[in-house]
């Protein structure tokens, strides 16, 4: 450096007294991003088991995983989109519409499942893509645009079915494969689908360049754009994937219930967001984990099953679920703040 020389070495050496560095394994443990939801889940399991010993059995866990499947699959898509910084409130309507569409194709139009399933999935993806296009073109927050499409697709589902559910009354391989068949005692195939979807998206998010782009798009869009990340394309892709998974979740429900009603999936969007948030995904975008969301969905299913098993009055149900969600979120935030150094 030219110019006036600043005399170096004249400063007294700063004496720093650092607290003893915490052990590595402790740091590693606290660095687990899913720590909050893990703690919540373990605490709940302990409480429910103390109140009802029958809770801690493989049968119960099969139930819980099966019940978590529909919510979990949709929530994975929602999480993937939230990390990119957008919301989709229409997943419940997509769930119903795509499910009803599949049901109609297979019953009234006698289409082969090999055609009907991809067709309905494509449509579900198109619903998601439409959400993305509207949001990006109008620059209106996705929260608002998908609120609108939510009502639109729900209305269409009601209109084309007249409000009536569509059932398949004969034994159906399609339904078995989608969700009906019991794989091991109470564990149904829908739970297997959940694990497959979770694995695929865990890989996509964490192990590919695209996943890196998703985090950047949600974390700081302009910085990402400046480095050449096609942020708009990333968002559109994620909207589409959220749609596909919402439709897939509808198929799982169809498989499990042998019928599909246009009024189902009402609370799905908010529950999916809840599962994501319990699992540690940020509402601001830029951070989140697939594993966390799965655990969040499992937590919510555990609460539902557990409350029934311990004989809690139904009237306190939703209230209890709400309290746990809030506590889980607070736990996550507190862990993040207190142990920011862990990463």
């Amino acid at each position: 450096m030219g110019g006036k020389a600043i005399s170096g070495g004249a400063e007294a050496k700063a004496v720093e007294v650092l607290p003893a560095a915490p052990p590595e394994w402790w740091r590693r443990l606290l660095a687990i991003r899913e720590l909050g939801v893990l703690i919540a889940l373990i605490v709940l399991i302990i409480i429910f088991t103390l109140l009802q010993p029958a809770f801690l059995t493989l049968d119960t866990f099969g139930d819980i995983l099966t019940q978590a499947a529909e919510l979990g699959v949709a929530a994975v898509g929602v999480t993937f989109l939230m990390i990119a910084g957008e919301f989709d409130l229409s997943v419940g309507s997509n769930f119903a519409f795509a499910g009803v569409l599949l049901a109609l194709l297979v019953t009234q139009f006698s289409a082969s499942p090999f055609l009907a399933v991809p067709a309905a999935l494509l449509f579900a993806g198109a619903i998601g893509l439409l959400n993305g296009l509207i949001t990006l073109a109008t620059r209106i927050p996705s929260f608002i645009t998908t609120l609108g499409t939510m009502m639109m697709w729900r209305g269409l589902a009601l209109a084309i079915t007249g409000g009536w559910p569509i059932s398949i009354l004969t034994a159906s391989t399609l339904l078995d494969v989608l969700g009906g068949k019991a794989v091991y005692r109470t564990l149904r195939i829908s739970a297997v689908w959940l694990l497959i979807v979770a694995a695929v998206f865990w890989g996509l998010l964490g192990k590919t360049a695209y996943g890196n782009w998703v985090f950047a798009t949600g974390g700081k869009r302009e910085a990402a754009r400046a480095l050449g990340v096609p942020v708009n394309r990333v968002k559109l892709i994620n909207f589409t994937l959220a749609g596909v998974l919402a439709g897939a979740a509808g198929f799982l429900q169809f498989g499990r219930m042998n019928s599909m009603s246009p009024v189902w999936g009402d609370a799905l969007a908010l529950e999916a967001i809840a599962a994501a948030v319990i699992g540690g995904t940020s509402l601001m975008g830029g951070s989140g984990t697939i594993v966390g969301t799965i655990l969040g969905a499992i937590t919510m299913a555990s609460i539902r099953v557990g409350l029934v098993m311990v004989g809690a009055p139904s009237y306190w149900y939703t209230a209890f679920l709400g309290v746990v969600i809030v506590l889980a979120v607070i736990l996550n935030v507190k862990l993040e703040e207190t142990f920011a150094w862990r990463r």
Partner: protein
Amino acid sequence: MKKGILGALLTIALVATLSYAVRLPAAPQPLSFFVIAHTGPGDPFWAVVNKGVGDAGKMLGVKAVFQGPPSRDIPAQVNMARAAISARAAGIAISVSDPPAIGQVIRDARAKGIPVVAINVQEPADYKGQPIPYMAYIGMNEYEAGKNVARYLLPRIPQGAKVLIAMHEPGHVGLEARARGIREVLTAERGAKVETLDTTQDPTKSLSTMRAFLKANPDTKALFTLGPLGAIPAIKMIREDKLAGKIAMASFDMDATTIQAIKEGLVEATVDQQQYLQGFISVVQLYLHAKYKLAPTDYNTGRGLVTKETAATVESLVKQGYR
């Protein structure tokens, strides 16, 4: 990301170990009975069933629990039933709200050796014609009750008159049966023009839907609602729009609002389903079966109408939650 997988594996390992470590007896030691409906907290009707269930549990000294989702939700009901099965319930009473889905659940429960009785909705078979293996039905015959109450209102309905049925839960097989009974009697005896409207479970929507219909059809002579969720907004409308005397109303089931309206002459009659018995008797029957293997039997809970004459007596019981 490795940390995420590590965490997930830890959880699964922990849980699996604990599962294998815990060996359970065939059934939980205190007998527990589950009464599972397709809705619950949002409908005053079920609060009475809840009380019946609770009272029976207390009297018999067993755990008896009422479970139901806040509003009609078949998948949630199925989930609750499966949880009850996993809890090794000593007996389950369930409303057959959706024959295919609930039928399957009942079959699974029976296969696991859990006794099941049906309440509130009587569906002996699912849509395929396959019988649903519940051991007894405790509830009202909806169709007959519909005919019954329609007959009671015949004097107020001229030939060819317009009649409105407010359906607050389309797709509910029990309500549909009530409506069918009403429709048959009115068309056969009076050639009436009967219109069924979806008024939803939401009271505000219900009120505006009915009001709109009456505005379009001011010569409507009678209004039938199928339960408190339909009756409460309808009674409000009759009060506000001063329709007493111009339109005859009848309903099903009882709650304080409907009883009061009967006393005031705004409503002609309501069918008393005596749903307290649906909760109480089903628990008792399941208990007797669990303890002494006594076979449950069908029990018709709803035989009477409540009219102006009997309203006052019944009213205080409604307030206490028994009827």
